[in-house]
């Protein structure tokens, strides 16, 4: 039997990430378990990304979009060209540990979707010492609670599953939550998403990072809640819990920046959704973020 890595095609979407994309690609090429191919989708970058990609020569395959289509559509484009039976994704500001693919495939064969934990790294790539490990409880909890740490940079997905659910959502209003929506669609189609409870990739926290901007959360995560409700495939209790979770996350993002007015608005929404346990939890999170906002400690740098 051939090495399991040979069934995996890696897709890396990128847009104006010249400072990081080289490190991301190198981390894939340095894998102990070599993947079948590396496809980089240059989503119409306007910086020096195209030149940088040329330096990798034949070791990667580059396709470039004519207009910026954003990350969901870019991943789908790459996936459509992939020849492997499974797809792995990496965001161009994140990195893989050298043993990532080997350890993940040893734990879960590429015929089932899987995600792993992440280490949080800083702008310069240094480990911050913090980890985010998704819970191994029921899938439902994974999807409600681990809203952005089921990072696409850790996903391995059978191509069959990817095609069955129609890939990542491509509408612009969902970009940023497209990864979570994709996981929800996998769940609805019955695919068991396995969790490898080890941090095998570096998730970069940087001022230009998407999750650092409350406006992004507000736009895409709330739109995704709306989508969840409209599909009518999840219990109303679950939808309410998700709304509670998201509103809390948005409120917290405003609180730590000491932007009190939108923070108040979203806190109000958070505490009117979800069951008692959800609300209690959001009160705890809100209190913590308020403390951060008032003291000014750990305030994120502006973009």
């Amino acid at each position, binding site marked *: 039997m051939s090495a399991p890595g040979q069934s995996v095609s890696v897709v890396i979407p990128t847009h104006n990430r010249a400072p990081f994309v080289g490190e991301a690609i190198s981390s894939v090429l340095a894998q102990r378990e070599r993947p079948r191919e590396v496809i980089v989708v240059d989503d119409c970058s306007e910086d020096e990304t195209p030149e940088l990609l040329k330096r990798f020569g034949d070791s990667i395959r580059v396709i470039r979009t004519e207009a910026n289509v954003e990350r969901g559509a870019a991943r789908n484009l790459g996936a459509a060209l992939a020849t492997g039976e499974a797809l792995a994704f990496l965001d161009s500001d994140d990195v893989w540990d050298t043993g990532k693919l080997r350890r993940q495939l040893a734990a879960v064969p590429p*015929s089932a979707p899987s995600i792993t934990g992440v280490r949080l790294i800083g702008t310069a790539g240094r480990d911050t010492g913090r980890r985010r490990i998704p819970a191994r409880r*029921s899938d439902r909890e994974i999807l409600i609670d681990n809203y952005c740490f089921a990072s696409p940079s850790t996903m391995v997905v059978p191509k069959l599953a990817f095609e069955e659910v129609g890939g990542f959502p491509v509408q612009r209003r969902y970009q940023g939550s497209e990864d979570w929506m994709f996981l929800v669609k996998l*769940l*609805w189609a*019955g695919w*068991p998403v396995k969790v490898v409870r080890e941090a095998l990739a570096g998730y970069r926290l940087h001022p230009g990072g998407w999750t650092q901007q409350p406006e992004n959360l507000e736009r895409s995560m709330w739109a995704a809640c709306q989508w969840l409700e409209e599909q009518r*495939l999840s*219990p109303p209790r679950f939808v309410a819990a998700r709304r509670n979770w998201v509103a809390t996350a948005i409120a917290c993002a405003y609180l730590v920046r000491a932007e009190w007015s939108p923070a108040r608005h979203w806190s109000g929404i958070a505490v009117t959704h979800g069951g008692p346990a959800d609300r209690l939890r959001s009160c705890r999170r809100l209190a913590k973020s308020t403390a951060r906002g008032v003291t000014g400690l750990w305030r994120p740098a502006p973009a």
Partner: protein
Amino acid sequence: MCGIAGKVSEGEPIAPGLIEAMCERQAHRGPDSRGVHRAPGAELGVQRLRVIDLDTGDQPIYSEDRSVAVILNGEIYNFRELRRELERRGHRFATKGDTEVIAHLYEEHGAELVHRLDGMFAFAVWDARRRSLLLARDRVGKKPLFYAEGDDWLSFASELGALTSDDSIARALDPASIQCYLAYGYIPAPWSVWRDVRKLPPAHLLVWERGRSRIERYWSLDYSRKRGESPRELEEELRRRVGAAVRRRMVADVPVGVFLSGGVDSSIVAAEMAAASGQPVKTFSIGFEDGRYDELPRARAVARHLGADHHEFVVKPDAISILPKLVRHYGEPFADSSALPSFYLAELTRRQVTVALNGDGGDESFAGYLRHVANRAVAPIDRVSHRLRRPVASAAGRLPAGADGRGIPSYARRLLQSVDLDGVDRYTDHVSVFTAAELDRLLAPGFRDGADPTRPRRVIRRAWYTAACDSSLDQLLSVDVNAYLPYDLLVKMDIATMAASLEARSPLLDRGVMEFAASLPARSKVSLFRKKWLLRRAYRDRLPAKTMRGRKQGFAVPLDSWLRHELRDYVREALLGPTALTRSYVSPAAVETMLGEHLAGRADRSAKLWSLLMLELWHQSVATPARA
């Protein structure tokens, strides 16, 4: 009630005689007439069993300008209302039957017409102007529809055997489907036993236009809006809806009867029929010469109570000669052993009537299975940490297993063993013939590692995770309605009745009844240990008290004893003999062990052995001849 088939193509012309060959293969579905529509790039064929509009109803049916052609398998119960409405809008009708409303509704609404239909159906509409084909199946999947697609063509048929008469469809086995079959005893939609053939799932429609197709779901049960009325008001509403559903299904221009098992559901249907009809209802029951499974006395008591014209059949089943026939009819391996008594019952009933009502669907709507009570009882455990549950599960695993694997103690043991699992995995375990772990031991390594190994698990999981229900009971019911009911129960009824050219109708699967049941709070379905609480209560005055208290049995067969005695050599020869073609899938040692344990009476392996036997028979009578 009919068999439909057809092919559309944008490329190569359709082979001459193909449609006739497809119709011929499913002629038993509708022996009364055959109709064919032929147009460039589109041919449709239908075998019709005349039930309504005996003179002018032969299909295909056309719109006024003949640009729309329709073939229908099934019945549209609300066709009279629809017809009146369409006539008011200026449509002219050429026939008196139900098929024609589809043609005119299509002109008004296009594919959206499915929302207006109430009934059991699988139909095809060919629109010559747009060169598009619409296929649709009823909300719960009472009528089957198989299809296969190529780059620029699509073929469809009511039965798998008819569809595969089309030579452009490769007959290559789908190993993942075989694994699904072994796991659950059936192959769920959209898959089939052949890699290139699909089943259209219930409540779905398919639109094919110039070589491209799209599939969408058009209906699902809503469990989120609950009723707050008092039990008395709920009972009244329930009786009103069940009564209406039964009366709607008594409309036919041929004799109508009812299958009476003596259980709650079929007795209720018979009672409503008796109330609606001026004459005694014709009731039909079956019993075996093995007293343990004989339900005849219970059915007889109900029939006497209702003053019915009761017919009883006692058979000594000749499984060896009937089984291959059933297997050929369905064309796919199918392991529900009650297909056998259902077939006998259908065949004997057909001698008297053309249409038979039944009680199917009551258990799925009103919570009639032990697993509904049991899973509800253990649902709170999902909030307890796995660390605490694990010791309970492993201790339960060490309890002694009963030899017959039946009854409350062995069920409780199985339930306790699974407390460590998540809800979805626990349910999967309960409904599995071979659990995932057993399948691992059974399958030969080469076969197990074939394509798509997670498919069996996905079958239940997709139903589980798309059940938009807040209560754990509703979630179980929703999974039953979306998996067990359409892929097992309804398939069984369709195979058994169609093989006998009898039309089955199920009032408890009426849309109004099912939507009402979904809107009931959990407490009115299951009380602590009482299943179908409201349904029993609503009819307690109209049926014998003993019937309403009775335990569930359905049309069961004495499988364990058959396999130990009458079928002993037959099974051994089939599963372990030199022609055992399935051996490339399963490890012979595992089969040998299972058979040994069963024959020695150490354990009841009857469901497992039966499913292996049916797979082997399918190979012998369908797969091998098809390949030759």
